[in-house]
Each structure stands twice: as C-alpha cells, then as structure tokens.
C-alpha cells in the first residue's frame, strides 16, 4: 500500500497539536526544513521538539510560536552561532516562554537509543560534575550496582513522530540514507511513527538491492513525502550542497521581532510549498548548490 502523500497531508495527519517531534536527527545535514515550514504554515501549537542540534530549524519553529518545550543538546545557528528566536523566547518570553530540557549530544542519543530498545534508561559516565542535570531533572546521578562508581542515568525518550529527510525511498517508506547519520536510526526506532521526506521516490527493487543502507523498518513509516530540495539550506549528500549564506542571511534578518516576521512571511507564510520556496530562491542560487561531480560507490554483491 502506498504511503505517498503531500507534505500538507502528512503534517495535518501525523503532527497534531501537542506532538513530540524529532527533527534534525542527522545533525547538520538532511534537516527536514520543508516539513518544519509546513508545521509553521499550519500553525501547529504546543510542540515538543526533540533533537541533538537542530541548526536553525528549531529557532524558526520557536519564533513562529509552535513550540512549548525543547529537549535538545544545542539550539542555534551552526553558521552564525546564536539563534535570535531561541534567545528571545528564553530571555523575554517572546513569543512565549519555553521549557528547555538540556542534554548533551551523547545523552540525547542515549535517551533515544533507550527509547528504541524499550529500555527504561542507559547509564553513562558523561556529564558528571556538570550543571546539566540541574536543568534536566530527568537525568539522575546514581552509583553503578556493579562497580559502585558514579554514573548518570539517562531515561528513555519515545517521541510521537520522527521526521527524517533521506535521499530516496520507495512508496512504502523503505528508505535509503547515507552520510553521517547522527541519531536518525535511534530516533526512528524510539518514535511511535516515522515520516519519510525523500529527494526521490524510487521503485522497491532499488531499495531492496541494498538493504544495509535502509534507515529504518518501513512498517513504522506512516507517510512518504516526495520533496526535492526539502532539506535546503542543509545539504543532502549526492544531491546538493549546504547554502551557507542562507544561514547568515537568516541570522541577520531575524535580529529583531519585526525582521523575523518579515522573514517568516517571505519564506514560509507567503510560500505555498517547497516548489514555491525553491522558485523564490531562484534558479541561479539553486544551481550554485548542485554537485560539482558525482562520486558513486562501488556496487556490492548480495549474490548467493
């Protein structure tokens, strides 16, 4: 049964108000910006955002007033540093107050890994002596029942939905992703369901020709959205490079509340969908991000 649908339908059906959502699981690449923008257009409220670092997608969702709580290791703008919307929310309650639950990259990984394993928690030696457990009461210091040494217990997270941008998928959500994966697999396994956003939708036989490259079991996938360019300005290996300047432009534009509204109107509210967004971006800029050369992997033999 095909799970193909539009981004509009996928978000309307599977990201209701109050959901907990993982995005940006691969870290700086494969960030599902198109999905985030659809969430903003639909004005979904009271979300809990979960991710390691989110680059500027979390900042945008916060600035648009969609977010109640952030469970993350880092929120900002990787190119420019601080995220203005995140700062305004935390420092001035604009557009409203946020609950911030601090993690490190390792502990958010372990929380999702535990969630996917169905384990209550995973212990770590990280974060001992830091103030992070003070701003994340879920992290608990304890002693190992085996060696007696100090450890931090990281309780499992089981988000409602993980939104993963990938290179290609079949219409059932059997999806290939490559490059650094960050916590993509952990997020997919921990979450109740998965939305796959794919650069390309390909026939099933292409996916099963290389099962080691599959990112998650397709029976957990609830929607497949074909969305070329859907990760821009983040990069997609083998498809397009990172648009560094776009991050700096956003940083400058969102310095003030008014500037943020203007940016949101231009790139999100007054843009119907990702195709419209890419049109606004312009052919020339989009061209400049395309591959300079292909670097194909050698085929592998699954013969028997």
């Amino acid at each position, binding site marked *: 049964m095909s799970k193909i649908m539009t981004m509009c339908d996928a978000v309307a059906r599977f990201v209701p108000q109050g959901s907990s959502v993982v995005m940006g699981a691969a870290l700086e690449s494969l960030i599902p910006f198109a999905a985030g923008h659809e969430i903003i257009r639909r004005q979904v409220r009271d979300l809990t955002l979960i991710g390691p670092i989110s680059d500027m997608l979390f900042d945008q969702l916060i600035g648009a007033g969609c977010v109640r709580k952030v469970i993350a290791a880092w*929120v900002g703008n*990787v190119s420019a540093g601080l995220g203005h919307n995140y700062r305004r929310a935390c420092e001035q309650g604009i557009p409203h107050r946020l609950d911030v639950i601090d993690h490190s*990259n390792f502990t958010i990984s372990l929380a999702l890994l535990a969630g996917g394993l169905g384990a209550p928690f995973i212990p770590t030696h990280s974060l001992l002596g830091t103030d992070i457990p003070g701003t994340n009461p879920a992290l608990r210091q304890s002693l190992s029942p085996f060696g007696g040494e100090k450890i931090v217990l990281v309780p499992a997270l089981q988000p409602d939905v993980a939104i993963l941008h990938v290179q290609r998928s079949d219409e059932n959500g059997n999806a290939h992703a490559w490059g650094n994966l960050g916590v993509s697999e952990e997020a997919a396994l921990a979450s109740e369901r998965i939305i796959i956003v794919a650069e390309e939708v390909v026939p099933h036989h292409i996916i099963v020709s290389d099962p080691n490259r599959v990112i998650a079991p397709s029976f957990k996938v609830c929607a497949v959205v074909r969305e070329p360019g859907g990760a821009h300005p983040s990069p997609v290996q083998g498809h397009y490079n990172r648009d560094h300047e776009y991050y700096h432009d956003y940083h400058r534009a969102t310095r003030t509340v008014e500037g943020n509204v203007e940016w949101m109107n231009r790139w999100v509210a007054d843009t119907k969908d990702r195709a419209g967004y890419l049109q606004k971006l312009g052919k020339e800029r989009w061209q400049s991000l395309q591959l300079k050369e292909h670097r194909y992997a050698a085929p592998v033999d699954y013969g028997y």
Partner: protein
Amino acid sequence: MPRPWIMGTEMDYTPQEIMVAAAAREIRDGEIVFTGMRLPLIAFALAKQMHAPGAIGLFEAGLVRDTPAPELLYTMGDPPNIAGALWATRMVNMMGLLQRGAVDLGFIGGAELDRFGNLNTSYLGNPKSPKTKLPGSGGAADIASLSRRFVVIMAHDKRRLVERVDYITSPGFGDGQGWRERVGLRYGGPSAIITTRCVLGFEPSWGEAVLRSYHPGQSVASVRAETGWDLRIAKDVHETGSPTPEELTIIRRYDPQGFWTR
C-alpha cells in the same frame, strides 16, 4: 568579517591564524582527535600536513577521517567531509569511542571560561531567567567529560574569562585539585586554552590555569588585564611561536577566502 592583523616581523597574520597554528601543535602524531567545529577543523588539516600525518579525526555527527576534507568545511556535516571518509555512521558510535577511552584529544569552543577551565555555553545569569541564553552543550560536555584531554579555543576578554562560570556545561577541573575524581570523572581535563591573546596551560595537580605563552603583540600585563581573575604565570612563560610561512601557506590554501581565519 575583517579583524585586526598582527604585524609580525617576517609575515603578517591574523589572530585566528596563530590560534589555528597553536591548536595544530597540540595534536600529536597518531592521536585520535575529536575535531570539533570552526578553527579546529583547519587545525586538524594543518597538523595532518605538518607533524601529525597519522592523526585520525572523529566527528560526532558520525564520521571518521584519516585525511582532511578536500575543501574548507563550514560544518562537520558538509558533503566534502563525507566523501572519502573512513566511516560514516551513527553518533552513538562516535560517543561510544569517546566513553570507551579511545579519544586522545578533543577540541571545544567556549563562551565563558573560569580559572579552573570549566566552560559555560548554556546560560549567562540564572538558568531560570537567563540574561543570555547560549546554544547549549552540543557534544562539548561529552568531550570535556570523556576525552583523555581537551583543548579550548575562544576569544579572550574580561567578560569571557571569569573567576567562576555561571553554569558548568563542560567540566574542567571544577574547583581545583581532585575535583574530577571526586565527581566521578575517570580521567581527562583541559590541557590548553588557546585564546585570541595567549595560550593557557594547566598544572594538573592543582587544576588552575597558568599563562603559558602570550601571542606576539601581547604581554603578560596585557593578558592579565583582560582576564577576570588573578592569572598565574608559568615559570617559563614566553611568546607564542608565530605561524611559520609553511603553516600560513597551508592555512590559506585551506581557507582561501579567510572565512574562519580572517
């Protein structure tokens, strides 16, 4: 963003370039290095081509490399960093290597640092109502907790180098001697702080930063004037070695537009 240039005797270079050169010198041949963001990415490329051809770079997003990326990186997830990598994988595998004790050296950046090398990249002021909300740990707290040693790269002024950080994101030597052991950290700690003005080292036995070298154009007095505590001076304090022409050539070949280094 144009920055003031340091006028050297033989060659002019920027504060960022001397920081990259100093950071590269912290990498020993054959070491496993958690490479971090921005300047350390260039330091890794420099060290590989100078004195540490056997160094291996780990990137927390899930990458291992034994060669520098063929192009300047803006983030660790840029496509040139993935092409030709030794391994592209999951973050837990990178962090697992770190926790397993495999990582000799990690690089992190800092917004606020104190005399015991603790770093704050989370909250200025009270976390409940922060004066400034900084982005948070990312992987920095893990690197500071779990690498065999770590090096900090940061801008140097009185507001950033403070007596006591408001919040410990990444643990240095806590409140001094024996602290890491007391809180349960098994090893590690900062080995150098490379700033825009100087290099600080640590006396591990008492865990406090000491001025190891000041960059050309700086002095013991100018560094102390811009440090928020009564900074101790190493007995053998000296001027930081300028980047050599060869080092500068490599840095500028790698960052021809000066995106990170000018």
